[in-house]
Every structure is written in structure tokens, then in C-alpha cells.
């Protein structure tokens, strides 16, 4: 075992750092620093820059356009991204549906869909959850009925993140309702959002932002050529996608940056009782220390998972730990930020955290956005399979319970 970077790894770190310094748009970085919501265009622009360098599809095999990084290199890239405050890759195409397409899709499907994902010409969204099927995902009711060369889809998908931006949606639909087990009879199909019969309606989250949507399918006719793999075998493909999703949720490096921010702010904020700095208040600092210990342990859990992935196969059920602990840490940091903001957590100042705000700003840094952020981030332990579902996965797949 060795914790040090090799000469080659250090050189790679320099290369990555320099690339981000020179190519990450300063206006997007400024938004991140000011906690302004990035727009669709920001994601598209940056992902195209990354892809031109060959660094966008991090988790893909080289033959499809992945960069061929080993575990340490991926770790270095994550570190450097956090350092440069790089916005995330929108995961729905590149991280989630793409592995399903290159693992289970036909050659024709790979040629048709993967290049546009690489180049971010197409914005994907996720059609998994339904109003009646959340954690119990296999209980989904949206139907796909074969009609000649098409499937006719009816039903409602929900929690569709940025579905109002999306060009395509990947859906789980029930193609056989006679099966004994509800995991059977599900198919995985790709749908053009412009198809007649699809409508998208917003769901506002606790921060009053439009992040998620409901997507309604009313007799939507989809070519059977868009079906991935075999009919009724969709659950297998869906699970592969979920492991990739879970692993990407941990967001360790982002939490490290945010925790650093907590420390900086605490060093510039008076203690609750006005005596000295908040940073010197032992009660506050021990909370920060506890979060940092958890995060440090998680960072190495993630590294061990990445190393295991590099030496063969998709991330295992252990990735559930990354999801549980990663989201717990994120939420703990949100709590610390609200505490830091003090009275300036009180005003609701949504407009000043969007592009184009010209009024008089309230509060320093992003004090008045800490509340909305905290409320919004309660989603972390719920989406991607609630943390209780993750525990269930550990019990079943790891402990054999």
C-alpha cells in the first residue's frame, strides 16, 4: 500500500490542473463562486470543451470514447475539478444511460446515441420513478404495448430532474403485466421528448426552484427500434444504471471544498455568544471535525471502490455505502452552513441567486441561500434509492440477509 502519487501521477495532476485553469470558462466559475444557478447552456458549453479534450466520458471504456483513466487518475481529476470549482457533468446521458447503451444496446443503437451523448448534442433525462413507484421502483405502472413496429406508452414518470431541458428520456415501462414477479415484464426504452403525447409539468422543491418535473405519456408512439436489449428484461439493465448512479452521488470532492468553505467562514464569523470566533468555539469545531473524519473515511472508501472497479467490473453493492455516507456528509455540511449564516439564514432571496439579478443583495457570501440549499438537499438521502433502500441492498447483496 502506498499513499503517494508517482512521478507520472504528479505529472498528470499538473496536466489536469493546467487544462482546467486554461479552459474552464471563468464566467461559469464565477457563478459557482457566487452560488448562482448555472443554466443549461453553461453545462452544454463546458461538457463540449471537456469532450474535445477526450475527458468527458470518465466512466466509459476506451473503445467507446472513455479516457482510459485508472482509479488514481479518476481521483486526481475529481480533486482538480473541485479545486477549480468545476460544475458537474449532467449525469443522465453520460453516466447513466450510456453504460446501458454500450453494454446492452445494438451496434446500430450505439452508433445512433453514443456520439450525441459524448458531444452533449442531446440532453437526457430519467424516466424511472412514478407517482406510485418510488423506492419500490419495480412497482411501476407505465405501460408499453406493442403495436406493429411501435410501442404505445401510457403513464406518468416523476422526479424527472431537468426534464424541461431534455431532448430524450430513458424509460422503464411495463410490457408484460402477467408476470409473477414485478421485476419481470419491465422493458428499457428510449423516447424522443418531442414525440406527440408527451407533456412536462413542473414540481417545485422546498427552495421553490424548478428542478424536477412530472412527465406524462398519453398514447405516445415509440419505435420498437428504441428498445434496449430484450423486451421484459429491462430490470437487469436498470440495475446496472443504478449502480453507476449511486457511485456518482457520493460527491466527496465537492463536500471537501464545501467543508473548507465552512472552516474559512467560521474563522471570520463571531461565536454565537459574541465571545471570539465561531471557529474557536469547541462545540462548533467538534461538529466540523466529526464531519471531516467521516468525509476522510469516505474518501478512502471511494478510492478503494474505484480501485476495485479498475481491477474488474462495475461497482459492487458496496457502492451503497458511498451513497449513504456521501449524502449524510453533504447534509451535515448544509446544516453547518445554515448555522454559520445565523440571522441571515432568515430572508428568502431567491432572485439574487439567479443570473441577471440587479437589485441590492442581502447578506454576505451566500448566507441567505443556505436555508433553501439545506431544504433542497434533504433530497440527497431520498433520491437514487433512499438511504434505507441502500441499507436493504447491503443486507441482501453483501450480508446475505
Amino acid at each position: 500500500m502506498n499513499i503517494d502519487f508517482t512521478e507520472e501521477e504528479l505529472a498528470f495532476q499538473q496536466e489536469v490542473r493546467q487544462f482546467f485553469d486554461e479552459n474552464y470558462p471563468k464566467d461559469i466559475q464565477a457563478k459557482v463562486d457566487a452560488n448562482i444557478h448555472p443554466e443549461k447552456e453553461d453545462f452544454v458549453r463546458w461538457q463540449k470543451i471537456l469532450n474535445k479534450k477526450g475527458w468527458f466520458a470518465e466512466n466509459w471504456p476506451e473503445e467507446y470514447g472513455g479516457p482510459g483513466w485508472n482509479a488514481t487518475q479518476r481521483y486526481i481529476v475529481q480533486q482538480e475539478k473541485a479545486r477549480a470549482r468545476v460544475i458537474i457533468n449532467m449525469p443522465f446521458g453520460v453516466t447513466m444511460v450510456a453504460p446501458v447503451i454500450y453494454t446492452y444496446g445494438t451496434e446500430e443503437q450505439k452508433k445512433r446515441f453514443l456520439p450525441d451523448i459524448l458531444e452533449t448534442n442531446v440532453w437526457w433525462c430519467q424516466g424511472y420513478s412514478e407517482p406510485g413507484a418510488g423506492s419500490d421502483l419495480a412497482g411501476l405502472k407505465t405501460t408499453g404495448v406493442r403495436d406493429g413496429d411501435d410501442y404505445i406508452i401510457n403513464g406518468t414518470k416523476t422526479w424527472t430532474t431537468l426534464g424541461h431541458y431534455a431532448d430524450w428520456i430513458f424509460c422503464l415501462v411495463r410490457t408484460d403485466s402477467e408476470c409473477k414477479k414485478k421485476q419481470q415484464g419491465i422493458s428499457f426504452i428510449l423516447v424522443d421528448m418531442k414525440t406527440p403525447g408527451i407533456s412536462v409539468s413542473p414540481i417545485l422543491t422546498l427552495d421553490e426552484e424548478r428542478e424536477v418535473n412530472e412527465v406524462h405519456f398519453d398514447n405516445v408512439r415509440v419505435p420498437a427500434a428504441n428498445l434496449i436489449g430484450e423486451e421484459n428484461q429491462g430490470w437487469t439493465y436498470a440495475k446496472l444504471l443504478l449502480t453507476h448512479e449511486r457511485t456518482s452521488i457520493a460527491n466527496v470532492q465537492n463536500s471537501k471544498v464545501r467543508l473548507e468553505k465552512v472552516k474559512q467562514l467560521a474563522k471570520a464569523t463571531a461565536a454565537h455568544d459574541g465571545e471570539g470566533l465561531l471557529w474557536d468555539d469547541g462545540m462548533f469545531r467538534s461538529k466540523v471535525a466529526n464531519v471531516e473524519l467521516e468525509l476522510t473515511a469516505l474518501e478512502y472508501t471511494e478510492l478503494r471502490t474505484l480501485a476495485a472497479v479498475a481491477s474488474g467490473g462495475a461497482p459492487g453493492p458496496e457502492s451503497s455505502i458511498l451513497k449513504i455516507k456521501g449524502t449524510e456528509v453533504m447534509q451535515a455540511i448544509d446544516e453547518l452552513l445554515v448555522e454559520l449564516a445565523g440571522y441571515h439564514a432568515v430572508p428568502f432571496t431567491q432572485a439574487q441567486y439567479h443570473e441577471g439579478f440587479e437589485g441590492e443583495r442581502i447578506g454576505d457570501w451566500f448566507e441567505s441561500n443556505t436555508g433553501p440549499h439545506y431544504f433542497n438537499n434533504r433530497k440527497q438521502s431520498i433520491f437514487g434509492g433512499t438511504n434505507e433502500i441502500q441499507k436493504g441492498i447491503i443486507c441482501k447483496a453483501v450480508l446475505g440477509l
Partner: protein
Amino acid sequence: MDFSFTEEQQLLKDSLEKFVVSDYDFEDRRKLVASDLGYSTEHWNMFAELGWLGMPFKEEDGGYGGSATDLMVVMQSLGKGLVVEPVLANTVLAGHMVSSLGSAAQKDSLIGGLIGGESQMALAFAEKQARYDLTNVATKAEANANGYSISGEKIAVLNAPNANHLIVIARTSGEQRSTAGISAFVVGKDAEGLSLNSYTTVDGFKGAEVRLNNVQVSADALLGDAGSALTALESTMDMARIAVCAEALGCMETLLFKTVEYTKTRKQFGVTLSFFQALQHRMADMFTECQQASSILYMAAMKVDSNAEDASIAVSAAKARIGQAAKLVGQEAVQLHGGMGVTDELDVGHYFKRLTIIDTLFGNTDYHLKRYADAM
């Protein structure tokens, strides 16, 4: 970066775990704990023959390893079997002090015996008033014509009843909490003025309160230079922390395994306990704690091995986090075993005891959390 063990480490791990699984029976352990000696000389000789006692020592000292990772591999495996043979007290606590400070002659006469299993040692450092502060040394060593005269009281000296030699930490100069003036001496167990109040520890090891009343030692009993033993004591503590963290990890892994197996067989309300989600999720938490403990321990061991600037703080991170994990896993293992968990006959409670005492040794969770927080 590399998270894999070397071939030697993997072989060592395999042979240790084979011993623990097939030759280290819990009933036999109970008899050993109840015996006067407290461990098996047969086991001890076997550990020596297989080179296990040499793993915590560098090659230049006659050992076979010496890295924190080597030590981690050994101690994690011993933890899995709740091994009561005094590896920690001899090879880590006393051994690391001699290895860090000893002259060639002192190493020659002491380390060979530790690696070969012929001699037993103990490190007498803790004092009642000091809690975990290593600089708080009230025991005094006064220089005289024949060497030094040592007086003071040491507590919780692990393995002292069986030791041929004690390494005694005593102050040769300075105020009680001064960093300078702390020295280490090799003191024969039969030295005049040395008395032991011996006991078995709550987790099955041998220990003693040690009183030194004008114990006269020669000048060559001093390890290293007079007054400058603190650095070695601190690095010994760090190695000991790595050692007990690894041992705790081994204990936790065994407890998780035993708990899962138990709930799969024990029936209540017509079904096995493993059927209940309220229990399942607690075992998932135990698993997660084991993984997080493992991760932070690897991090600390690797930092120690690469001489990282923040290595000692990384060790504190591991000790604090593993203290938390050990408490959760230990308590939950007992709880999920129900009434059997609190019986003396079942091994689960004994793992729990060891985990509890490990947190108390060399700085507990709060001590290390504060040490970590102060360094943030």
C-alpha cells in the same frame, strides 16, 4: 497510489487468519485468560517461529517488516480471533521504544529476545494524573554516582506481571509537564524497590500498577539521550494506535460476521431474526462502520509509512473514527445477540470488552477528536 498488499503481507495475513480460525478456540482462550501466565507459551513460540513477532521490527533491528502496514496486517488478524497473547505490549509498546532509542548493544540484547519470543517486556508510561498527556510525567529519575535512582507510580502497565524488563518513562529534568527532560530506562523486573500490584485486565490481558521506590539502575539502563525520549514515546504511541485500530477492525469484522450468522439462525415469533428490518438495517450500519473504519485506518497507516507531515494527525483521525465505530459495532453486536450477548460464555461480549478498552488506550475518541480538531 496503491491499495493492495504485497505478496508477503498477503501470505502473512493468510497464515495468521488460518491460525485464528482453526487453532484459536474461544474455550481455550478462556482457560488461558484464567491462568496465572495469561497466555500460551506454545502459541508464543509458534508466533516467534513463524516470524510474526518480527513483523513490527525493521530489518536492521533483525525484524522482517517494520512498516505500519505490516503491523496493521498482523494486528487486524489477531483482532479477528481476540488473541490474548501479548503482541502489543512486547513488540509494539516496548519494542518500538527500544528500536527508536536503543544503542546497538541495547537493541542486540533486547530486540532479539522479543523477536525470538524468549523475553517479555512492558512499557510503563501511564500515570494517574496525566490522563493521555504524555508530557505529564511525575516519576523522577535522579542521576547519582551509580547511574539513576527512579521513584514514582505507573498505572495500567500492560504485560508487566510477565515482563523480564520494563521500559520506565521518568523525568530526569524539567517541570512536571515540560516536553524536555523525559527519559526512558530499562529496568529489570527484579530490581530492588520495584513492586507490582498485578491484575488481569477487564478484557483478559495481564497488567499491573507499578511502584518504583528509589530503584537504582546503572547509567547504561538509559535508552537514548537523557531528557529526550518524548519523540520516541510519541511515535511509539502512534504505532500502538495503528496497532489497536487494526485489532479493533479485526474484532469488528468478526462481530459483524457472528451477528449476521446468529440472526440467520435464531428464531423468534416463528421467523429468524434476520427477517426483521429493524435489525437488518442495524447490521447494514455495522457493515458501513467496518468499511469506514477500514478506510481511515488504511489512510493513517499509509501516511505513517510515507512519513507524511500530518501522519500523527491522520493517526488521531483513525483512532477517533474507529473509536466511534467500535462503540457502535460492539454495542449492537451485544444487543442483536439478545440475552446471550451479555453472558460470559459467549465470545461476543468479550470482543465488545476488548473494543471498549481499545478506545480507552492511547487516547480515547474525544482526546483524538480534539487533537484532530485543534490541528484543523
